[in-house]
């Protein structure tokens, strides 16, 4: 399997990173090298192996249903590039 320029463009769009047309080729090359290298995993038969879910041998803890957070709009908004009337503001989205 090989990653071509179109695939890089598609992934870059999925990842929302602008990749200039002239860089697609070299990134495709990088990705192909890395993918060819990780491809050695296919040597290992893993048919009967469970995928790792967590190295932690513990149960997911569940917290109580208590409101103990929120009410900190200033802290939430203070680093935002643009805010309006207590909202985050972004370029208009068309539905």
């Amino acid at each position, binding site marked *: 399997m090989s990653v071509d320029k179109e695939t890089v463009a598609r992934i870059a769009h999925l990842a929302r990173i602008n990749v200039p047309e002239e860089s697609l080729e070299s990134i495709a090359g990088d990705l192909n090298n890395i993918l060819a290298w990780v491809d050695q995993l296919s040597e290992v038969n893993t048919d009967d192996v469970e995928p790792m879910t967590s190295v932690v041998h513990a149960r997911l803890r569940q917290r109580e249903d208590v409101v103990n957070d*929120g009410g900190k709009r200033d802290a939430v908004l203070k680093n935002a590039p643009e805010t309006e009337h207590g909202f985050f503001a972004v370029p208009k989205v068309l539905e």
Partner: protein
Amino acid sequence: MSAGKSNLIAGATGDWEVVIGLEVHAQISSEAKLFSGASTKFGAEPNTQVSLVDAAMPGMLPVINRECVKQAIRTGLALGAQINCYSVFDRKNYFYADLPQGYQISQFKQPIVGKGTITLDFLDGSTKEVGIERLHLEQDAGKSLHDQHPTMTYIDLNRSGVALMEIVSDPDMRSAEEAGAYLRKIRTIVRYIGSCDGNMEQGSMRADVNVSVRRPGEELGTRCEMKNINSIRFAQQAIEYEARRQIDILEDGGTIKQETRLYDSVLGETRTMRSKEEAHDYRYFPDPDLLPLEFEQSWVDELAAELPELPDDKKNRLMADLNLPSYDAGILVSEPEIATYYEVVAKGRDAKTAANWVITNLFAALNAQGKSITDSPVSPDQLGQLIDLITDDTISGRIAKDVFEVMIKTSDDPAKIVEEKGLKQITDTGAIEGMIDQIIADNPDQVTQYAGGENPKVIGWFVGQVMKASQGKANPGAVNKLLKEKLG
């Protein structure tokens, strides 16, 4: 109308069948969010119910709310579904302005609840089973406001991270009516067990509607999805519109494009959503910030044992134990508040009388005032007392209706109204006899008519005169009996 019959839609080239599957997003009635301690209360100032976790600040981590797990299990039990004691949270990755993490924590391959079934009831007493594919836990997104500024969208994260149950049906529904019945049933169930308030206006319950059409008996057609519909009526309208649209395209020789469409309730039509046009690739993978969700079957058993009576069980009980007709029972169990109200009224009283008073008189009065049963001016105890006054002959059924009118306006006890307005039924035969004697004396013509047998209905005229003289308070039974005696 019920399943199987007359659900087909006539097209220009023959009949079509519409196939509907529904994904209901039901907000869990918890105090705090699924993975953070911020409040879930509706209607707060923007971004005031947002924790650093909900705003996806760097380094923030999710910790699950036990109440949300519990309510998902309870809902699964109420849907008669398989509960999975081991489930996994996955990340669903996509970019959107109101999705601060860039992913939604959801459950993809291993949901907390598996397959189940619910029964839909129709007005004619028929029923239909609809399969539940799964129920999983997930985070809600924030809210985008597109109409506040000419060039900007505003983002409020108060909803961000609120716990949702996504309940996915099998594509078992064949008409807008069935889809409506399904939504009502889900709403009734979650409201019975209190896992969701079912409030569609506030967005606590929304539906994604999948619609396709096909020739009867053929393979499933390509489906379109209408997202985030927040009323049962709109869902039904969207289905009607969308089915017709698809049939028109197919009959013109076109093909249906699988897509997400927006239902515009103002125009009553569906249209392509520009923001959802591209094909999605959500890149689901297990959330490494969380471990698999595991719990004991004993907890599930405990929750099952504590579950309140479910609407189907209650309906069956009302029919079997109280001999109520299916129609009455169906209406009385449709909302937990109605059922509770009814059961207080009916306790120790005639079930059918109680049902009539609730379904006919109370509902009419509440409708007229635009009120719901929870803010009824007449308490169930008061309505019961009114029925008791009829039963013990204190007032007649006729007078009871007048008393009820007053109760609706004043919220006073019926006994007080009867007392104050002197509406107590006259059962003293001496008093009634006096009135009858007077009327007989004053109306010799009618007495002759009666005696001659030429007009047997004239007895009714005498009853009316006595009731008039007594201002309606004379006991009708006593009046009849005494009249017959006196007139011979």
